[in-house]
């Protein structure tokens, strides 16, 4: 029993954090909202590739870092903290591990890990593909089949999203190559995406909290810093409480997934449920703690809040994730409460 990251994991996360502090400051995220941000995105992707992050899960023999899901968690926390406007989670945690097991798709795999290709994924069947506008490949699902789509030359109907950096597009049936019909592949891909998303949400909450604390300590109203008022203190303490108790649940999910444990499905769902809730509450609270300043697009907070909103509802919303947990607990289905005691529920 040792429930803490290893020194190596901490070291790698610190390296990623430092890289992203330089390479993905708020200006980069902001730029990604418009077409002028494309070059910054390409540069950033390249830097992530150079760090070895994109192929991190490949064995060292194949030029990777041999990382497991457990190792990825602290890295994805950093990707979230920086709100990297690229499908890092989808490429690193979903596409690369999937393609790595399939000798036939070597070119795409090489392209992704070297940073020549950007890969996104959407398995919920929502009809909207995030990061479509900045991606070359997309993993999609039709029924229970996994398909890989080459987005080059595919006409995309881009849509406006609340988080303007998401570069999302509507996806009517995309043409694609069949990757797998094995439901186990599909489930693993889903769980990896959900886990990486939960970890990003943890990072996003920390970023929002850092901004709110800095603002509340500096902003004076009525002659005192607003952060010296109990109301502000307590609302921000609750954000910390949520996220500090979400992180270990995310970490456990990674351990279960890496071990191939049958509990992985429920553990990932628990992680996503708690991270989504923490993120939703953090978004609302940190906007409130900022007052009108947080309610503008000139200030940086909104970049992180909007990413959190987007990620909270994808790869399994809180409600859906809780349904998975309920299922794992063997709970009977809910009954409708009777309307009046002598009338049966309708």
């Amino acid at each position, binding site marked *: 029993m040792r429930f803490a990251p290893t020194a190596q994991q901490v070291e790698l996360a610190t390296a990623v954090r430092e890289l992203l502090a330089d390479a993905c400051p708020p200006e980069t995220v902001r730029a990604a909202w418009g077409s002028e941000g494309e070059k910054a995105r390409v540069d950033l992707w390249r830097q992530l590739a150079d760090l070895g992050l994109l192929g991190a899960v490949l064995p060292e023999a194949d030029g990777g870092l041999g990382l497991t899901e457990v190792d990825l968690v602290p890295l994805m926390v950093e990707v979230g903290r920086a709100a990297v406007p690229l499908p890092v989670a989808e490429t690193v945690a979903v596409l690369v591990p999937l393609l790595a097991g399939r000798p036939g798709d070597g070119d795409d795999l090489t392209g992704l890990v070297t940073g020549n290709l950007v890969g996104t994924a959407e398995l919920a069947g929502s009809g909207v593909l995030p990061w479509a506008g900045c991606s070359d490949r997309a993993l999609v699902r039709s029924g229970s089949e996994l398909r890989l789509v080459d987005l080059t030359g595919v006409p995309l109907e881009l*849509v406006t999203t609340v988080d303007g950096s998401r570069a999302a597009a509507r996806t009517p049936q995309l043409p694609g190559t069949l990757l797998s019909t094995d439901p186990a592949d599909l489930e693993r891909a889903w769980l990896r995406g959900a886990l990486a998303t939960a970890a990003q949400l943890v990072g996003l909450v920390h970023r929002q909290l850092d901004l709110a604390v800095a603002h509340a300590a500096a902003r004076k*109203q009525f002659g005192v810093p607003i952060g010296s*008022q109990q109301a502000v203190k307590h609302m921000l303490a609750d954000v910390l409480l949520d996220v500090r108790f979400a992180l270990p649940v995310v970490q456990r999910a990674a351990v279960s997934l890496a071990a191939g444990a049958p509990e992985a499905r429920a553990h990932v769902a628990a992680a996503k449920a708690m991270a989504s809730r923490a993120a939703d509450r953090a978004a609302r609270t940190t*906007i*409130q703690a900022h007052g009108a300043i947080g309610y*503008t697009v000139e200030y940086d907070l909104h970049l992180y809040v909007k990413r959190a909103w987007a990620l909270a*509802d994808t790869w399994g919303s809180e409600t859906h994730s809780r349904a998975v947990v309920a299922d794992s607990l063997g709970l009977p289905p809910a009954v409708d409460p009777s309307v009046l005691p002598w009338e049966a529920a309708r």
Partner: protein
Amino acid sequence: MDLTWSPAEEAFRAEARGWLEANVPRGLPSGDTREGFTAHLEWERKLFADRWAVVSWPERYGGRDASLWEWLIFEEEYYRAGAPQRVTQNGIFLLAPTVFEFGTAEQQDEILPRMAAAEQLWGQGWSEPGAGSDLAAISSRADKVDGGWRINGQKTWTTRGAFCTHLFGLFRTDPEASRHAGLTYLLVPLDTPGVTVRGFGRLDGDEGFAEVFFDDVVVPDSAVLGGVGQGWSVAMATTGSERGLTLRSPGRFLAAAERLRRLAVERAGSLTASARDGVVEAHLRAEAYQLFTLAQVTDLVEGRTPGAESSLNKLYWSELDIALHETALELLGPEAELDGPWSRGHMFSLSGPIYAGTNEIQRSIVAERLLGLPRR
């Protein structure tokens, strides 16, 4: 306890409903962009032309002398018909009550008809970078000059300021006086030399806010509303309006709760228990807000003034509005991240607990003035 409307009130409702059904524009762009604002002005002018712009005002200013009850009925019908947000609201709901109460006859005759006709478009100039909820910290100053006042300083978070023609605001006219004292309520045409307006984006990205810079801006003595140095008490009258029932009429939330109900029925296939309960909650709260308001209007009509009770209104509608939109987003699922009326409404709702005095301040007001808990 009488919850029925008189035949005259029912007739008023029928007339309003009929006119709105025939005239409400569909698919207007956001009033917080320049093009959208222009489109909204057309609607405002149509309202004025048929005397629906300011129903509770005297006829000579374009109103119908409607009672408070009729005003409530009009608002209910307005939102029920899906009519757009009023881009003139900061003028007609915040400034106008103050002009009626404190304005000179000349100010009333000059301002009110033009405001009703959407010729003068008024923005609010209260907040400053260093004075948000703490209004008494205002530092923009107006110095006495011959025949008027010279203004220097900066206002911010002026709603739709980039599209307005005029600004009302508080300025420090006595720099020696502390906090609440020494403030004066001034009316400033935004085309006065020395004024610079810069629009900026709200949470939804629309240019719904502006900063207004004053660089030796000179206004005449007639720009003073309610007396030099009286700005605080004059402004507080308006604050009451903003927090009270005028700005957030129950009709708005009843209509939103009904839209939410329809969304739930349309999306029955993804109506989870928690979303379904959220629809019930929105409906319960919207009706509670309506009923609370009916009790409050009864009090007003009978001469009992609400006072600090308006903080209860503001807490209730602002939190109801957020909860209602959160339920809508839950119903939309992954589509919630798409730009649309619900996601925009959600972002807009988040401003509710912030503006017009944060909800934290309102809770302290409730505790101190309604419950009698001690101040620090």
